[in-house]
């Protein structure tokens, strides 16, 4: 099952690459650099998926104390942090030629940076507790608090800043880009979500193996 996911993600990612460079049109104002969007946006959105899964798994763990839920939360957290870190890096690399600066405190970048630090904290908390049962419990509480905080972060930062073009996908008005851009974007998005699922499943399996090795 996990292996299927693995191969599926490879196929999907290749398809995504083909679409990003072969099918997607060259953007008028930004030029080639705009193609970075086809990894940047899927990375960020996949990390949101990861954090939501983390929150749900944390909730399930607190209710049932099932170690599988804890492992899913842990794995999801790791991959989520990795993806959002890459999201920040690619966003920054995209920003330099486009806006002339490596960083700007606009709504989207700021929110993403805050989430990154929050979930790095989640991983640090897990790392600081030796007793696995305690670590699972505390991490679950933090995971739930963090997830509840996400909408608060989103709104507060958005009200504070609106330099960045309003996020076309998340705004109530709906997507305003052309369809030629939409399809490569969607294919890449699906590819990265599948990759997230594969890596999380594999990491969770490794966590179980490590737990059994100690026992």
């Amino acid at each position: 099952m996990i292996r299927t996911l693995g191969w599926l993600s490879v196929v999907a990612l290749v398809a995504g690459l083909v679409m990003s460079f072969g099918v997607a049109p060259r953007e008028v104002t930004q030029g080639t650099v705009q193609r970075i969007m086809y990894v940047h946006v899927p990375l960020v959105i996949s990390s949101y998926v990861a954090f939501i899964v983390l929150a749900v798994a944390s909730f399930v763990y607190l209710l049932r104390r099932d170690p599988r839920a804890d492992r899913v939360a842990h794995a999801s957290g790791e991959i989520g942090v990795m993806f959002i870190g890459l999201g920040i890096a690619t966003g920054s690399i995209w920003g330099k030629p486009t806006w002339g600066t490596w960083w700007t405190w606009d709504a989207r970048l700021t929110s993403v940076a805050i989430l990154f630090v929050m979930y790095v904290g989640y991983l640090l908390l897990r790392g600081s507790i030796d007793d696995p049962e305690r670590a699972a419990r505390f991490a679950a509480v933090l995971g739930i608090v963090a997830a509840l905080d996400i909408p608060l972060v989103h709104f507060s930062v958005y009200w504070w800043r609106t330099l960045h073009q309003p996020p076309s996908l998340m705004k109530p008005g709906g997507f305003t880009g052309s369809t030629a851009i939409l399809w490569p974007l969607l294919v890449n998005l699906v590819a990265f979500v599948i990759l997230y699922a594969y890596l999380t499943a594999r990491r969770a399996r490794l966590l179980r193996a490590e737990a059994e090795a100690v026992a």
Partner: protein
Amino acid sequence: MTYARRALAVARKDVAVERRSKETLNALVFFSLLLLFVFQITLGADRDRLAAVLPGVLWLGFVLSALLALGRTFLVEREHDCWEGLLLAPGDKSAIYLGKLASNLVLMTVVEALVLGLFVIFFDIDIRRALPGLFIVVALGTFGLATVGTLFAAMTANVRAREVLFPVLLLPVQVPVLLATVKATEALLLGEPLGAVAHWLKLLAAADVIYLVVSVLTFDVILEG
């Protein structure tokens, strides 16, 4: 003992301990004076820059004091080996949380009043018109900081690198509260009416409710042992 009585007992004990030792209070007062001093050195001469930066620095003072105060919430229990006593306490442990929250709120309010008073005096700021609005903003913001702060203090009380981990966990989660309070304070000090910052107040109120509910519901989990 009923739930409310237990919570009150915890709160009274903590306030009494603090009143007698004044350890935390002294550290916070000294720190606030230091902040004031540094602020004066860097910006005292330039009135315009000072006015522009004031809301941010004011809340910086509040937050840093809060970190100090909240981080020490369970210090007494840990240092004097009373932690087991907490874990073995009968009944709903969230009563302990509310008691700790109450004493933290009292401590933070005292320090904030002091910091605000010092700022007003030393930088000659006229806050009379803004005061009622300011009162609400500070109350909402302090509540938000204290609710999550008390929960996280319990969480980090017995982990490695506690002193570093506590602010690392608390500050990112509190960014919405900080943004809202600083922007609202800024607007109020510029003379805007309370209605102009209604959205910030709503955000703060929503945050406060969410934080309180989650903390009360999950505190038992933290103290399971």
